[in-house]
């Protein structure tokens, strides 16, 4: 088996004339954690759905998504269903809508185990209990016997993670796993995901708009804007010395508790304007009209350069002197 959990090559996702993902490439090794950051409309969720082979009818793809030696974009539904939940699994944003509301939680976990791992009823229940225990859920027996609506959001998301981990996948895709949760629960859920990924040495693709979450969880990051990756590199490179003006702007507009001398009425740095809609995406750099560094050159499309910290920008910010 290859050492890659996932290899995305020039992935394009489109619906009619609308191109949502415009050719992105990245590789995730086993045990590696990748973050995909972007605002709404950047194409991050469609990327995830394309990787899982879950795009709805009408969406067209080109390029390739390699996982386990197969190109997911061309694989048959039958083949895909043997892989989803087995070698790759997904944790969705909203556990309320992702769990089956009319089935008990225990059954939903044991179904996966029995289907993919060919366990018998008793073994599956034992495994499921062990998983719930690992997720720090109190009284796993009674949780197994509950319906999703009887549990809290944090509990449901832990069950989603448990289901995702059940069959020791090589790749977990987590799409905004903590956005729907309370802030105080967020950390617990992230900690569990972190431990689980570490313990099982599986690849993680974490998709979120939340920069601190990515920074805390991942090793590498790709920043998406307008359907393209505009900057990619290791967390410490990209978040410490952003080269793309958009990354810099995102980091600056993040409210933090660090400059806590604030007494209210403080201005935050903001990026002017808003993301161009899909039908009006410019031919050149999609960020140009919001960018302080934009020049005439930006009417042409920049490609990712070949530095270690890759950036797609005609006027990238120079790395600061103390940078690596």
């Amino acid at each position, binding site marked *: 088996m290859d050492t890659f959990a996932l290899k995305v090559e020039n992935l394009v996702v489109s619906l009619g004339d609308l191109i949502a993902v415009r050719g992105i490439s990245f590789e995730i090794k086993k045990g590696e954690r990748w973050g995909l950051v972007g605002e709404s409309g950047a194409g991050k969720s469609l990327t995830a759905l394309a990787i899982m082979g879950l795009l709805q009818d009408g969406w067209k793809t080109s390029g390739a998504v390699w996982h386990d030696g197969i190109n997911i974009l061309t694989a048959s539904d039958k083949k895909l269903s043997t892989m989803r939940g087995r070698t790759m699994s997904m944790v969705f944003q909203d556990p309320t809508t992702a769990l089956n509301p009319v089935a008990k939680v225990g059954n939903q976990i044991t179904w996966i185990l029995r289907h993919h791992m060919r366990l018998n009823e008793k073994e599956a229940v034992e495994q499921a209990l062990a998983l719930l225990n690992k997720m720090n859920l109190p009284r796993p027996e009674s949780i197994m016997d509950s319906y999703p609506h009887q549990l809290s959001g944090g509990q449901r998301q832990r069950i989603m993670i448990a289901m995702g981990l059940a069959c020791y996948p090589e790749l977990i895709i987590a799409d905004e796993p903590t956005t729907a949760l309370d802030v105080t629960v967020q950390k617990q859920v992230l900690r569990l995901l972190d431990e689980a990924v570490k313990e099982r040495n599986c690849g993680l693709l974490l998709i979120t708009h939340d920069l601190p979450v990515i*920074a805390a969880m991942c090793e590498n990051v790709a920043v998406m804007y307008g359907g393209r990756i505009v900057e990619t590199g290791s967390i410490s490179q990209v978040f410490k010395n952003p080269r793309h003006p958009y990354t810099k702007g995102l980091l600056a507009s993040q409210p933090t*508790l660090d400059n806590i001398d604030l007494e*209210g009425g403080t201005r935050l740095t903001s990026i002017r304007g808003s993301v161009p809609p899909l039908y009006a995406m410019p031919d050149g750099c999609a960020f140009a009209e919001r960018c302080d560094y934009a020049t005439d050159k930006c009417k042409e499309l920049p490609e990712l350069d070949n530095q270690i910290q890759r950036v797609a920008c005609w006027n990238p910010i120079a790395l600061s002197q103390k940078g690596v």
Partner: protein
Amino acid sequence: MTENNQQPILQTIGVCQEYKLPRTSLLGKPPVLDALKEVDFYAMEGESVGIVGESGAGKSTLTRILVGMEKPTSGIFKFKNQDVWNSDDDFKHEFRRSVQMVLQNPRSSFDPRMTIGQSLLQPLKGLKIGGNHQARIDEVLGQVGLGQDALKKYPYEFSGGQLQRVAIARALIPNPKVLIADEPVSALDVSIQAQVLNLLNDLVKDLNLTLILITHDLSVVSYVTSRVAIMGHGRIVETGTPKFLFQNPQSEITRNLVDSVLTVGKGIEGESLF
């Protein structure tokens, strides 16, 4: 607290709010949920106050009481030092006009079949405000940084951040004294959040508004408000300046909230990454 010569513009004294839950047995009384337990809250004129708490802490119930959408089960709710629920209709009308609200999700707070122009007329009609309506709408649109071309558009034609600006404009139309914003930026993208928070800050200063900002995000609140009330289990557990609360959290609830704030460059346990 600092301005002792001023009266609070909004104040709750010992406010409790109970909700009846569905009956669990045929004979017994239905169980009661104490959403608010003896909450004392005030906001001075021109002050920006934050209300922070987890979901289920009672933030939304307190908000509904502060805008007069619900009558508290017990306790007194005062506007300009007068009991709102024991006042004449004229005073109630003044109260409704003076206290306006911005909701979390602008997408669901506009009628999709109305143009923005029509939506912005509603508060003027509903509150029976005279004068030149069109001039007032134009003025407010300018204040939130939108052009006249917005009036003919429908909500779906706006991005989330732009629509939140329209929602703020709609709240400003009756010329309120108090603006209550319930999670105004949590549905917005990071780069847009900053724009909207800056706009709120500017409006508070320019129009001398009292702002009550309800949020679960401590880092957001520190940029906008000078005093924060932390809520938990239906009570206000702590109040103070953001700085003081974050540096010396006294209660478990505050400490949990402070601990749960993630910062770029820090790991999950708060260790420095680079």
